[in-house]
Each structure stands twice: as C-alpha cells, then as structure tokens.
C-alpha cells in the first residue's frame, strides 16, 4: 500500500514538473493578422485561399521544444477567401469543402523533432518538424509540417502590439485533396491542383 502511494506521488511530481515546464501560448480567431493560406498551382490557374480566422493553443517547453509539446490549430474554412466571391461560394458548397458540415480544418500537435535548436531564445528563429493529425472534411490524417518558431520575450515593443511573451509560428506542408475525400469536379479540371500547399502563420501569447 505504501509502495502504491509512493508510485502515485512520484508520477504526480513528474507530471507537475512537466506541466510547469510547459508554457501555454494562445491566440483567438479575432486577431485577423493570424492566417492560414491554401495554394493550388494548376496548369490553367493559380488559386490562393486565405482564411484569417485562426485560433491556436500551443504548450511548449521553452528550454526543450521537443519535450512533450502539445496543442492545436483551428482554421475556419467558411472564411476562406480566394479573391472571387462566386468561387468562394463554390468552395464552401457540399461538392467541395462542405463547410456546413465540416466548418474547420484542425491540426493537433503530437510532437516536434529535428529542431535546429532545442532552446527557444528571445528573437531567435528555430526550424523544426512538427508532427500531428490534420482533420479536414471529416477525414483525419497524420502529417508532418516544416515549422519556424520564434519566441519574443515581452518588451515595450511587443507589448504595444500584443500583451505577454509571444510565440510566432510559421508552418508549411502539402496535402492531397483525395486523401481528404475531396474530389475535383470535371468542370474545373485543370484549374485546381490535386496537391495543395498549406501554410499557417500566427502569433500566440502566454498572457492570461
């Protein structure tokens, strides 16, 4: 019985230590400077879709970014703008993204590897690979994204923009539309590429 209590206590101490090592950075969809960009380069047309409704929660150990990071990034697909209103409406329709039923693209972070530096220092960019699960159109797939992380310690300069210590995240990866059960209608064949470049760019704060 004593041994059991001891084990539970040790696990509790370890979990507490791990959770204290993590710093939680958040940003909401109201800050429209955060964004996700979807890019299709087809033979007939290049299409760029931008959604400025992005929210994120990232918990990371600033002294070792590969140490059990977790978090999520959520993008409102109904807010995707391609520069042509009619095309935006088509994109939201049931034939494409079906945003009535699947309004968000969600990425759940499960790990960070191959970091150029384990430590996030003030103003220094760190490149790494982030792995996690991406859900679009009701389908979830494991993906790996190339990310750039920059930590900004709160200063007069950053405080004038956003309160708290800040984490800037830039992520780039590619997806295949067919992997997410999105088929290209024959009438737009040649205008939309099967492979879509996705990038997300946001600044999150640890301010509570």
């Amino acid at each position: 019985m004593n041994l059991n209590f001891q084990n539970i206590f040790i696990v509790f101490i370890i979990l507490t230590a791990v959770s204290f090592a993590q710093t939680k950075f958040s940003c909401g969809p109201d800050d429209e400077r955060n964004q996700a960009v979807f890019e299709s380069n087809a033979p007939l047309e290049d299409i760029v879709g931008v959604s400025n409704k992005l929210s994120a929660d990232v918990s990371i150990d600033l002294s070792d970014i590969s140490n059990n990071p977790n978090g999520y990034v959520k993008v409102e697909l109904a807010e995707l703008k391609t520069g042509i209103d009619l095309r935006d409406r088509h994109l939201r329709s049931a034939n494409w993204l079906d945003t009535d039923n699947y309004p968000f693209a969600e990425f759940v972070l499960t790990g960070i590897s191959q970091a150029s530096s384990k430590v996030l220092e003030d103003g220094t960019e760190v490149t790494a690979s982030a792995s996690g699960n991406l859900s679009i159109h009701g389908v979830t797939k494991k993906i790996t994204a190339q990310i750039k992380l920059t930590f900004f310690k709160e200063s007069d300069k950053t405080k004038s923009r956003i309160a708290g210590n800040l984490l800037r995240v830039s992520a780039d990866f590619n997806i295949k539309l067919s992997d997410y059960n999105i088929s290209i209608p024959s009438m737009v064949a040649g205008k939309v590429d099967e492979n879509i470049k996705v990038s997300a760019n946001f600044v999150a704060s640890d301010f509570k």
Partner: protein
Amino acid sequence: MSIKLNKNQKKTVYVAISLITLTLVIWILYGAEIFTKTEVLVEIEDELFGTTKEWRKEFVWGLDLSLIISAITVAVSLVVMYFQKNKRDKNES
C-alpha cells in the same frame, strides 16, 4: 470566293478590329491574366507577424473579358454590316 464590302461595311470592320485590338492591348497592360479579378493578393511584411497575405480590392482585366467584348463586337459588327449591305443593295437597284 471574295466578299465585296462597301465603304460603310469596311468602316465597321476597321472599328471592330480596332476595338478587339484595344481589348487585347488593355489585357496585356493589365498583366495578361487569364481570368478577370476584382481583388488581388498582396504580401505584407511585418516585424512581428512576418510575411502575411491579404486580398485588396483592385480590378485586373483578364483574357475572359477581352474575349467576351471581342465576341460581342463581332456579333454587333455582323448585324450592322448586314443592314449596311441592304442599304448598298437598295442604292444599287
């Protein structure tokens, strides 16, 4: 087989060709885009947020617009030339 055009019909052909050429020149001046756009994507550099993209209201003349105007020009010219031909025929008789 040759088509004989009267003076007025020739004028109409010249006007139509000029209009079509003008639409193509405008299209090239706007950057020779295939599709007409009412918004363009611009990149914004920010010290904190890095490089972000934003849609700005701006009109870009596309090849589709040039083709529509050209098709309308050809159709209107043919109708006008038809009536001009009738006048010529009447004058000749």
